[in-house]
């Protein structure tokens, strides 16, 4: 896939925050019935609701409030401003414009790494 484009994203909502995860990094969408990393911690928001769904990525679960799959074939990825480079251990990879709003595009692997470090700190 050429640089600056992404093909298919999973749109997630965590509290008032929103983020998009490339479909290729998501193994499956599972019911929230076991231990999972709370994505809201990475955005400074409070812990999400008990009910919700989990994104299964790299063998681990990321808990979010709601999940949607965008069927648009290709999306333009806006670059990360230099001011925000390195945020969340480099999990923010860019922004996509969807549904009249700007969604941060997040790397599931970096996000998991960032959450593990926070937990260890």
């Amino acid at each position, binding site marked *: 896939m050429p640089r600056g484009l992404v093909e298919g994203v*999973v749109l997630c909502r965590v509290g008032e925050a929103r983020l998009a995860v490339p479909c290729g990094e998501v193994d499956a969408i599972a*019911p929230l019935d076991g231990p999972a990393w709370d994505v809201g911690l990475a955005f400074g928001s409070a812990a999400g609701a008990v009910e919700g769904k989990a994104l299964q990525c790299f063998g681990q679960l990321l808990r979010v409030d709601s999940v949607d799959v965008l*069927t648009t074939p290709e999306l333009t990825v806006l670059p990360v401003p230099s001011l925000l480079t390195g945020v969340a251990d480099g999990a923010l990879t860019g922004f996509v414009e969807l549904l009249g709003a700007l969604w941060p595009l997040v790397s599931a692997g970096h996000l998991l790494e960032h959450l593990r470090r926070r937990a260890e700190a």
Partner: protein
Amino acid sequence: MTTPLPPGRNRWMTNPSTLAAPLGVMIAVAYVSSVVTLPDGTGAAYVGVLLTVLVGFNIAADLFEQSRLRTVKGLGAGLIKPTPEALTAAAAEAAQAPDTTFFLALFAFMVGAVVVSGLWYFLASPPVIVAVRVGLVGSLVAPLTAMMANLLVLPRARQVLRELLDAGLPPESLAQVLPVRFELRRRLMLYSTVAVLTPMLMVADASLHRSTELLEVVKRQPDVVVARAVFEAQRAEGFGLLGALGAATLIMVVLCAWLTGSVLGDPLKRLGEETERLAQGRYQRGRLVMAEFETWAAATSMSAMETHLLDAVQGARDAARGIGEAAAELVTHGAQQEQGANEQSAALMATTATTEELARSAGQISANALRVSEIARGTLEAAQAGKTSADAFTGAMAEVRDGNQAIADSVVKLNKRVQQVGRIIEFIDGIADKSDLLALNAELEGHKAGAVGEGFGLVAAEMRRLAENVMTSTREIARLIDDIRDATNAAVMATEAGVKATESGAGLARKVSDSLGDIVQFANLSADAMQSISLATVQQQGGSDQLVAAMEDINRTTQKNVESARQMAVTQGELVEVSKELAQVVDTFGGRS
């Protein structure tokens, strides 16, 4: 109030007897010295023996007398308490003292004369005839001495008896101690005999002795002339002696008569004074004149009579007082009776008016009772109708209660069905949720598959929308089910409240029915009672009319009673005056006991 017996009354009472003995001895000695010629050399022995015997016998007699007055002595000395028994014993001793003194003096003097004669004979050896004559002279004086002792002791014994009465001796006890003896005549004869016979014997003895001596002188003188002269001289001397003896005899008789009269007449004098007191109406309980023999009988009888009179006077006084009080009470009661009669008359008039009013009221009550009876009948019918309605209402309430109960049961069943529907909806919602998740994963996989999975992804997206619609619908249904559950719960509670309300209503209806039943019963009774009241009131009206007539009769009688009470009050006032006069008459007898 009592006065204790003075001390030493025992000796004071018998002292005269101690004086009487020397007096008798003096008389005897004077006679002997005048008539009897004692042999030469025997006079001193005579006098010594005489004095010795006199003192010894006097002491012995005194000791004997005092031994018979122990109780009197103890009471006077305070050694014996003045109980009625002790006072009675002392009275007995004092009453016997005069007789004791008499017999003791008589015995002692006669024995003493014999002893003097015998001792003198043995000591001085006078002629036997002289010694015997001296003894006889002493014995001749003994009755006179005893009589004097008796008469001297007697007044003092009376005085002691009076003092014992003052000390608390009951008069009736004294009457028992001093029994009545009708011996006055015999005693007077005895005293007279002694008083006359003793001097007479002395004169006779002296005359005989002088005659004998004169004959002896004449017989021993041979010369007739000398004998005549001696005879004349002796005769003249004898006349002188006899004259002296006659004078002494006269004095002795007069003294004995005076003493006897004084001693025996004193009680009569006192009786006269007591009689005078009684005649004046000055009665006094317990007055008793000390006396002997018939005089004592008169004294005791007079005392008893005075006691009886005092009792009678006291009874009359009490009766007069009682009559006075009763009359006063009668006056008071009469006034009260008069007042009561007046009040009774007024009350009767008021009662008559009230009775007439009562009769009129009875008529009105009778009419009202009939009306009330009719009203009670109407009430009875209304109550019976009300009871029927209440019974019907009770049945309807039971039906309502059953219907509510059925509704409640249906609502409970509906609630259960709704709950079952809810569980089904939850099951559908779960399926939709899983379907949504599966559709998400299918869509994700479809995107991952690229162009090949594009159609698959579209289908998955469509399925996901369906699942979401289903989930939306199930949530709506769940909300509706919640609403239905709330509504059914409210319906259950409402029906339960309705059941309770119908049960309460049914209970109230039963109570109303029961109350109406009681009302029916009471109304029935009231109707019967009103009929009875009506009948009774009619009878009462008739009775009231009769009562009015009777009250008028009673009123007339009461008016007569008022008049009688006034007359009775006047009579009772007169009775009070009479009772006062009677009390004054009784009080003139004095002698309050």
